[in-house]
């Protein structure tokens, strides 16, 4: 019947928004989701969850007692990457590996010193735990790094014959996050999760609640238009989500020392662009379900889970299998996270940020169009 009706009256809108803010102010669960949860998430990702590979526990078997072998063993022991458990033979440490207490075992073999002595490149064995491929990769890399440092300091590989050949030395530098601290990219990522929670989950709940409590019916029998009603739901939560994001940003800088190299304007633009699809999805879910329980389940499934798993927040998208990679293109937070990371760690690189913003706005319009389509002013 009444297809989307866009009548707008400032007075009615103001009355509806006043009501919405009064309800937010009185609802402890709103505060919990908007303020307590972001803090919890930030501290969780800032302190507890770490993807860094410092102090990985490894076993070290030194079968050779020559001086070079002992110096190499010493290099491993002092490395900040590893916590070393020494052992006399492999069998002794195998149990620790099986129990998950050790992530790798490095074996310095019997002929180690002899090979050094004969001018050959010595070999070591690195056994990693394949059940944790990421850690295994890191450990193998770091183990090799320590070995190469040791080799350089011993002058091994600088055989006289090779002296004339210009040596190529790789020296990696990590820009933007020199220490490769995962906190630096997890904290901006958790801002994305927080905004998804407020934009999608909270919005979905509040509209479904109006249906459940019968207030929607009473409102529809007044002269308000659906556009006013939807705006009155969207604007307060937009403001709330931005406030929550500001809180997260301040804490990220002050408590976690995450650099903020971009401008507030850029951050605001990115966050606002992301809130369009986020709020739009929440609206769509609640109008389609009209039931708080179903709405919250779907909001978690369609908003929260993709923001956690498919956005590149924790799992790198480029290492996902291609069908999953393809799927990530329809997850709005996939565009938010790189943009946020850029603003935090690199600065206002508008040529990188603007395409992400544009895509998020397109998603936003799509979701809003969908919710207007299902939110008819009708109980049919």
């Amino acid at each position, binding site marked *: *019947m*009444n297809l989307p009706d866009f009548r707008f*009256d400032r*007075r*009615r809108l*103001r*009355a*509806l928004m*006043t*009501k919405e803010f*009064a*309800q937010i102010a*009185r*609802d402890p669960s709103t505060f919990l989701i908007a303020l307590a949860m972001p803090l919890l998430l930030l501290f969780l990702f800032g302190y507890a969850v770490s993807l860094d590979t410092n102090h990985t526990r490894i076993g070290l078997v030194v079968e050779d007692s020559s001086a070079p072998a002992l110096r190499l063993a010493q290099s491993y022991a002092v490395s900040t990457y590893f916590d070393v458990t020494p052992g006399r033979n492999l069998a002794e440490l195998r149990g620790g590996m099986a129990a998950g207490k050790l992530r790798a075992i490095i074996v310095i073999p019997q002929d180690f010193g002899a090979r050094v002595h004969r001018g050959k490149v010595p070999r070591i064995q690195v056994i990693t735990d394949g059940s944790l491929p990421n850690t295994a990769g890191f450990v193998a890399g770091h183990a090799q790094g320590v070995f190469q440092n040791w080799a350089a300091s011993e002058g091994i590989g600088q055989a006289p014959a090779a002296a004339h050949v210009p040596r190529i030395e790789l020296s990696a530098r990590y820009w933007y996050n020199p220490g490769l601290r995962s906190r630096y990219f997890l904290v901006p990522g958790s801002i994305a999760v927080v905004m998804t929670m407020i934009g999608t989950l909270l919005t979905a709940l509040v509209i479904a609640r109006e249906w459940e*409590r*019968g*207030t929607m*019916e*009473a*409102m*529809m*029998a*007044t*002269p*308000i238009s659906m556009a006013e009603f939807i705006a009155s739901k969207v604007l307060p939560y937009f403001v709330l989500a931005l406030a929550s994001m500001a809180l997260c940003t301040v804490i990220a800088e002050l408590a976690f020392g995450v650099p903020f190299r971009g401008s507030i304007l850029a951050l605001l633009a990115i966050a606002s662009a992301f809130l369009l699809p986020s709020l739009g999805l929440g609206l769509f879910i609640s109008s389609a379900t009209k039931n708080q329980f179903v709405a919250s389940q779907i909001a978690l499934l369609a908003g929260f889970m993709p923001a956690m798993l498919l956005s590149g927040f924790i799992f790198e998208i480029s290492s996902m299998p291609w069908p999953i990679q393809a799927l990530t293109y329809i997850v709005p937070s996939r565009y938010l996270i790189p943009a946020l990371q850029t603003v935090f760690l690199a600065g206002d690189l508008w040529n990188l940020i603007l395409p992400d913003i544009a895509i998020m706005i397109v998603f936003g319009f799509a979701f809003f169009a969908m919710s207007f389509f299902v939110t008819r*002013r*009708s*109980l*049919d």
Partner: protein
Amino acid sequence: MGEPVATARGVVKRFGGKHARPALDHVDMTVTAGRITGLVGPDGAGKTTMIRLLAGLMRPDAGEIAILGRQPAQALDDLGYMPQRFGLYEDLTVRQNLDLYAEVRALPPEEREATYKRLLEFTDLARFQERLAGKLSGGMKQKLGLACALVKTPRLLLLDEPGVGVDPISRRELWAMVGELVSEGIGVLWSTAYLDEAEKCDSVVLLNEGRLLFNGPPHELTDTIAERVIRVTGFQSRRRRFLIRALDRADVIDGTIQGRSVRLLLQGGAPAPAPADFADGDALAIEPAPPRFEDGFIEILGGGPKGTSALAERYRTIPESDALAIEAKGLTKRFGDFVAARDMNFAIPRGQIFGLLGPNGAGKSTTFKMLCGLLTPSEGTGSVAGNDLRRSAADARAALGYMAQKFSLYGDLSVRQNLDFFAGAYGLGRHAARDAIAAMIEIFELGDTLDMNAGTLPLGFKQRLALACAVMHEPPVLFLDEPTSGVDPVARREFWTHINGLVEKGVTVLVTTHFMDEAEYCDRVTLIYHAEQIATGAPDDLKARAARASGAADPTMEDAFIALIEESNHQARAAA
């Protein structure tokens, strides 16, 4: 005055496919300015659908609806609508709710103070402006809902079952308030399932299962049965037994117990029976009684059931015993600081019906749940069929049949699966279960519905199935929580015919109801108000007490309730 503010012509509304029974089937009706039009019928009649169509919340599949000559959705400025749950934001204050409705209805700011003052005075809510709507009592919520619907004076006011579950005093006050509005020229549509409310309307639209049964002033319906309603008093046998025999007569199409008398509706055209025809003692007297709207409804539906209950015929006889069947001693239930039921005391001997009467939230269900072991009392004790609630609650539960509010069956199981399940849950052996289920199917005529999901049954069938599930194991005690809520009067009669029959076999019944007239079936009732028992006794005694207190002659049970509440309030004030 007298001009129509809303008209519906040939309105059809279907939900769920072309073959579904229409929720409204070619209904014509009119709401006139300055009058109260009653939209009357049991649950599922189509009342709410009709109101939503008039409010422009839905569109009819066929037919025309006009509000003041316009489409409903175009007439929202002139419409006041109070939905069933009053449409209030419970987490906002009274004042904030009013503000919201005033603003969305564009009440001119300069009129606001005067309007609020008038509405708050009218609804007596001035003291509670800063209270959250959710913390108001049912009656106060109802008044606030009305105030919100009236914030900008409408020309059409739609009230969807405003009287359900609120206490009789609030209901009476609301009625008086609506009467005032009508005198200002507003056209009011008042929907209700209470047939006694219909009699007070200027005009009535009677719906049943989506069909229009009657449309006109209520006296036009009752006039058709004038002279055919009689009251019989002075019979010697027990009143339930007398009613059963009277209903089995061919010239009686309906009958109800009214305290110590019995009220009968006679078949049209049959000569009125003489006292000797009943052969029940010399003192038997017959006098004409005023017809009621409910009698007319039953007449249209083709009369009520006969008196003999097939269920009772089959039921075992509960052995005679002097022990009390149900006893409550000082039962109290607290939830935190809130007292849901305080110091409940009553004793029910075998073979009686005892009623807990009161509005929603008064403490009926709490008392009820303590007695069937679903809630642990904070204080006090009780027993059911000789089993102490505190020591052997499980045995007490096994001795009773429980029919929960809203007929809580498993909606997604079929009728047969429900019967199987409850037979198993009450521990019937395989043969006993098979026999009992077969008997229930026959008695309650469930044969055609066996494979239907219980949730999709019409309400009357749900009620039958719920009763069947509660009595399959032939318990000595029956607990019935709002057992006839929302069903049509014929289904209600059928239900009471079974219950009366069972009681004659020695079954003891505890029933809660907010239908005051149903209290007449009870041997004794207790009135519960604000978590306390304010009066206990036989219905006739309570009415007599109320008549002495208020001076009204021949009060109804509802009048009695109101008089007794006022008396108790008076005493409370005097004591304070």
